[in-house]
């Protein structure tokens, strides 16, 4: 199905099933332990051996020697994989560093060996006996030092109007620099794989967000046909972008299985994850804002510095700045330093997350300079068109409504404009807000829908559910389209033998994958109608029946013993170029800051979101509150600490890399504004899973400023950055 003009009325608009807060259909499986994760697939293939990965102990250089003798002699060891016996390997399109290092080492904890043994404990014990000698090479590990030395633009700057003149002539100016640290996805389930070869055919059970990408990159790396590779990933314990790509657990399990001659399972050990896998790269951002005295922005400049390995991309922290606020003169650009730290890549809302953490503090600072309320300042600078192209409108833009509703609900009018004025016992209390913004991305997505003789509809797609609710919203879509109850729908996901979906990433999964189901259901409805001798255009599907005129037939009967099948993909024309599709939020946060210790604790949070049709308010709310929690982590505690001498992330386990715990998150509210966006797909939906994170960090930062009068521009806002400027303790 080609989608290149706004959707008209369609069966989804009935909203009998779609838009309802249906419980997760995979929930009982998850809560009873019967929805197995990759490492738990003990029953899928016999004779599984265990692999344990050895990560490189240096950041850059070469392996001089590896002494495997003790490891080989250890009990239970079956095989040891290294670059010397791995065979000739290519590299995946999506990979920057090689997943099996050696003799060259490209980053700390790059995998350099896999020990395969009869038990996990034996594999681990043996891997600890491998002695590696290295020739270390000098590397660049310090983004701040690299920036001082000069970093070229990653691509040409985007300019609108004349920024330099516009900024120079502005009556009120702000020019500040902000920093965000490297961050780790820290999802609960580590990367894990079971790999089994049958001749030249390979089956892989894994935890992965993008099945088709990963199947392609695995085949390319192994230099075998993609058809020979089957990936199965029905349940995933969180990803946040860490599982978008082929990673070392999968490649090494596959190579280990080939070497050992039997199936091998591998989970990436937690202490390796921070340095072995991808992470959100640190940024340094310079923001310049110019405004008229009455608060209209005239110039917006946003430059971002980040680093990556050779061949890696910049963290695009400026992308929202091209679209978010009106101003005639604009400059945005990214600068990319070559660093020898592990690969920077997508983590939940890449770009906007660090970008808004900086931009929305700058907006708070500018509002204060102008003597304007931060909400009013943003409303004043709203735009309904692309600031770079006045002809191009936003498909929907309810940012102002998000802010107004949010301010009302949160009690924003009780905020003291002057910071440091409100006390509650030993706590200094403050409120902050920010704008959330994230684009809606359109991606081709296919599905197959079967109808059987019992009237059961089965959806088949390689779509993944990383804890988001894909199973449930896809089932709701099919139930709505086919006029059956949710109990009549089953969903099979995460299998590369099934039609290729959009996958899970970039908050594109919900809208595109359900639109793919919609397209397949249109085909199935046609097949059903034809079999009933009805005009598909006239046919109404409801209550397990198809009806037109005086004719009414049960779906089960029409499907018969052989069943009926519909398969199609949603494909998009240039609609996303003609109108700008984005999602919007207003984030409001209240914090308390301990007067003595400067510990910040969030007291309450609110997000008001406008993101098209909300397919399931319950799972959408879960996405948003989870994202808000992640935003609190980014604001207050998350930081991969770089050792710039040795070139690695030091705090590489969950004791050292702190993320919020329950006690950090006392109260969260989420409001979804009524919205349908006919330009996004027949579902008229957009993503929310990343929107919920975008801007949260700055709202926390602004609340801390309001509480204390201390402005911190360097995340995370830990107490040491506040302490020196806190009031005297009585």
């Amino acid at each position, binding site marked *: 199905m080609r989608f290149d003009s706004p959707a008209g009325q369609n069966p989804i608009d009935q909203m009998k099933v779609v838009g309802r807060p249906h419980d997760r259909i995979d929930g009982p499986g998850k809560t009873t332990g019967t929805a197995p994760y990759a490492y738990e697939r003990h029953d899928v293939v016999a004779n599984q051996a265990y692999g344990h990965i050895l990560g490189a*102990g*240096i950041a850059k250089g070469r392996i001089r020697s590896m002494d495997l003798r003790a490891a080989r002699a250890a*009990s239970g060891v079956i095989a040891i994989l290294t670059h010397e016996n791995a065979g000739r390997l290519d590299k995946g399109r999506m990979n920057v560093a090689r997943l099996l290092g050696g003799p060259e080492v490209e980053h700390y904890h790059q995998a350099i060996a896999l020990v395969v043994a009869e038990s996990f*404990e034996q594999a*681990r*014990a043996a891997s*600890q006996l491998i002695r590696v000698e290295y020739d270390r090479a000098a590397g660049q590990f310090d983004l701040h030092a690299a920036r001082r030395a000069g970093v070229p633009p990653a691509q040409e700057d985007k300019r609108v109007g004349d920024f330099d003149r516009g900024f120079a002539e502005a009556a009120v100016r702000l020019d500040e620099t902000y920093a965000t640290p490297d961050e780790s996805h820290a999802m609960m389930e580590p990367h894990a794989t079971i790999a089994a070869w049958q001749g030249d055919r390979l089956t892989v059970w894994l935890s992965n967000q993008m099945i088709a990408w990963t199947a392609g990159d695995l085949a390319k790396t192994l230099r075998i046909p993609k058809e020979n590779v089957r990936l199965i990933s029905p349940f995933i314990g969180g990803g946040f972008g860490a599982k978008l790509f082929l990673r070392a657990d999968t490649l090494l399990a596959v190579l280990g299985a080939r070497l050992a001659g039997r199936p091998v399972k591998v989970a990436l050990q937690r*202490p390796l994850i921070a340095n072995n896998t991808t992470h959100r790269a640190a940024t340094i951002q310079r923001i310049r804002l110019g405004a008229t005295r009455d608060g209209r922005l005239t110039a917006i400049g946003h430059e971002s510095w980040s680093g990556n390995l050779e061949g890696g991309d910049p963290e695009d922290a400026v992308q929202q700045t091209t679209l978010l606020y009106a101003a005639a003169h604009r400059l945005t650009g990214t600068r990319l330093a070559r660093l020898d730290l592990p690969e920077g890549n997508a983590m939940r809302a890449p770009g906007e997350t660090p970008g808004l953490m900086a931009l929305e503090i700058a907006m708070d600072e500018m509002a204060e300079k102008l003597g304007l309320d931060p909400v009013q300042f943003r409303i004043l600078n709203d735009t309904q068109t692309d600031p770079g192209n006045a002809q191009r409108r936003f498909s929907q833009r309810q940012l102002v409504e998000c802010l107004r509703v949010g301010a009302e609900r949160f009690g924003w009018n009780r905020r003291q404009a002057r910071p440091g004025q409100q006390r509650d016992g*030993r706590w200094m209390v403050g409120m902050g807000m920010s704008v959330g913004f994230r684009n809606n991305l359109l991606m081709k997505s296919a599905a197959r829908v079967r109808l059987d003789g019992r009237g059961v509809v089965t959806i088949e797609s390689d779509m993944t559910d990383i804890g988001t609710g894909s199973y449930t919203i896809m089932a709701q879509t099919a139930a709505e389209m086919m006029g059956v109850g949710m109990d009549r729908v089953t969903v099979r996901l995460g299998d590369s033998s099934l039609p290729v979906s959009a996958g899970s990433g970039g908050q594109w999964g919900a809208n595109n994958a359900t639109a793919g189901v919609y397209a397949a259901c249109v085909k199935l409805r046609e097949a059903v109608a034809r079999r009933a001798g009805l005009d598909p255009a006239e046919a109404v599907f409801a209550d397990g029946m198809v009806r037109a005129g005086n004719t009414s037939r049960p779906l089960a009967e029409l499907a018969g013993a052989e069943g009926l099948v519909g398969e199609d993909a949603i494909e998009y024309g240039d609609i996303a170029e003609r109108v700008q599709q984005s999602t919007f939020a207003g984030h409001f946060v209240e914090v308390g800051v*301990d*007067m*003595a*210790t*400067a*510990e910040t*604790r969030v007291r309450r949070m609110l997000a008001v979101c406008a993101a098209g049709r909300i397919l399931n308010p319950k799972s959408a709310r879960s996405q948003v509150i989870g994202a808000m929690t992640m935003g609190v982590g980014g604001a*207050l*505690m998350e930081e991969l*600490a*770089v*050792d710039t*001498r*040795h070139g690695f992330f*030091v*705090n*590489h*386990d969950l*004791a*050292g890399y*702190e993320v*919020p*715990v*329950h*006690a*950090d998150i006392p109260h969260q509210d989420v409001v979804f504004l009524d919205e349908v966006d006919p330009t996004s797909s027949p579902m008229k939906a957009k993503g929310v899973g990343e929107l919920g994170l975008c801007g949260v960090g700055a709202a926390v930062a602004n609340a801390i400023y309001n509480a204390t009068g201390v402005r911190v521009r360097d995340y*995370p806002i*830990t*107490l*040491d950055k506040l*302490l*020196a400027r*806190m009031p005297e*303790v*009585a």
Partner: protein
Amino acid sequence: MRPFTYERAASPAEAAAAAARNPEARFIAGGTNLLDLMKLRIEAPAHLIDVNHLGLDRIEETPEGGLRIGAMVRNTDLAAHAKVRRDYAVLTRALVAGASGQLRNKATTAGNLLQRTRCPYFYDTDMACNKRSPGAGCAAIGGFTRHHAVLGTSDACIATHPSDMAVALRVLDASVETVKADGTTRSIPMADFHRLPGDTPHVETALEQGELITAVTLPPPAGGVQLYRKVRDRASYAFALVSVAAIVQRDGSGRVALGGVAHKPWRLEAAEAELKRGAKPASDSLLAGARPTPHNEFKLRLAERAIASVLAEGRN
């Protein structure tokens, strides 16, 4: 993890004797720290002596009016004990500020005292560490040291002791009772139990090879207002940046010990003599001679402010 043999000791003295015979033996109690370290091969004992079943899990009143806490009393049970809550509130407060409910259910009194540092360089076997490998050097010094010690450090080690409980025991003037391999017993004051790193940071306590902790004794209740303030980056389940254990008396006198700042709970009786003059003179004395790094210099200001806040709370 290195393969190991295992035995259940029959009595505390026999456990001590067995450990003295085998320099590669370790006692195992709750295992909440030792097993993690064994999995990473930071600890690699050849033999484990299980001391969980020796009747060391009781809390009894002493003839002097104090408490004798068996070495195997779980942190949860100790924190919940009625007399501890009433008369040694700083201990309950410190215990419940540590770890998680699940860990406290398993962790023991003796094991808590013997837990190793959480220095990330200690945990990364590709980094040099004088604790893991005496003489190897210290990768932490000059590295990421936000959590490290500011007092009592040496050029060999800047690690902290991570326990909350130990800080409360120090301020309560507790003693550690032990049995040695030859069956003799002794009592070690908390002040002398943990050592500063010096040139031998791998030697963390006053215990001799094989010496087994059998109990921790508390003297009669000290009275006063007993507070424990743990300062950390998140609200729960995090190690202290700085913690303050305090007993504040009506007359303004009291005791103060710090956690998160040194290789042992940090208390100076001389500093307490300043308390009646105010928080600032006392903390100045307590923090004198500090050697912070650029990453952890904030701990001095933080400790000073936390002490002031706790004393103010105690006097209210």
